């Protein structure tokens, strides 16, 4: 059973994500995480000012429960199911990241330069987290879905719009890594 405490290979992770989608379909729901961000806006009262948030968010409560589960799952996965959370990425990627200033590459789950608690008081790290979050939130709703709604659910249902969105995800990601990272870091 030691494999549980090791990082899980893709051929376990991928089918398990498909299983999550299958289970949600089989309980009459769908797999899409970003819809929750819209629900959270509605709960905060955004529907009073903006038409887009005027909907019956209570019908989306099931998805918020999935989110709560996802948080709990992250806690269980990191605290009880992992011996060592360092991510063994490609050696050349580690070198590239080191030269960009990410000394934690290869030794951590997330770069400590952005995600340890000191970054909450570091203006640059904070700015990166805010801008990144804004882009994710804005882009995902503009595109009508994220990695779960488009890349997994949409592509699995052979939806052309999802293929366009996923192509967009890649264009955006490649622009960020190749052109913007050297300017930011």
């Amino acid at each position, binding site marked *: 059973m030691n494999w549980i405490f090791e990082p899980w290979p893709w051929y376990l992770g991928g089918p398990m994500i498909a299983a999550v989608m299958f289970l949600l379909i089989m*309980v009459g729901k769908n797999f899409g995480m970003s819809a929750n961000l819209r629900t959270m806006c509605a709960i905060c009262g955004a529907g009073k000012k903006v038409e887009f948030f005027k909907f019956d968010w209570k019908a989306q409560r099931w998805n918020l*429960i999935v989110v709560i589960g996802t948080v709990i799952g992250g806690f269980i996965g990191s605290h009880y199911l992992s011996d060592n959370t360092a*991510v063994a990425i490609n050696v050349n990627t580690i070198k590239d990241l080191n030269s960009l200033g990410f000394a934690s590459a290869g030794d951590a789950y997330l770069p400590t330069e952005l995600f340890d608690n000191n970054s909450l008081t570091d203006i640059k790290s904070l700015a*990166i987290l805010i801008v990144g979050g804004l882009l994710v*939130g804005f882009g995902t709703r503009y595109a009508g879905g994220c990695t779960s709604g488009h890349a997994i659910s949409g592509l699995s249902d052979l939806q052309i719009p999802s293929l366009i969105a996923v192509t967009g995800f890649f264009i955006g990601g490649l622009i960020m890594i190749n052109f913007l990272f050297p300017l930011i870091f």
Partner: protein
Amino acid sequence: MRGIVYLCIGVFFGIVLFKSEAASWFRIYEMFQFRSFHMYGIIGSAVGLGIIIIQFIKRMNIRSFYGEKIIFSPKKKGFRNYMFGGIIFGLGWVLVGACPGPMFTLLGAGYLPILVVVAAAIIGTYLYGLLKDKLPH
């Protein structure tokens, strides 16, 4: 009762995201450098199996666990919103290394700064709602 089912599915999803390292900023970076098969393996095998699952459900007229008819709603036709929205999402995805599922996993794993990302993502969603009618769709 159904609430517990949703919660369990969520817990399973959160564990899978963390343990498969799909919630790792480093894995996302590495994916966009095309230096590892890992993330492609995860997404590819999930989609490959997903296609089989959905085709099976559709062709066999499988009903849900509760005996209800399963409805798949096709995405609306369009190009610009999917492409432009997708690009904006991709820019942010690589920068913070987390999309709307993994960001909640990471919150549970105890990375406090991800709260900033979650809050910003909610505000980003609000900004989209605010500007929706002015954007090309």
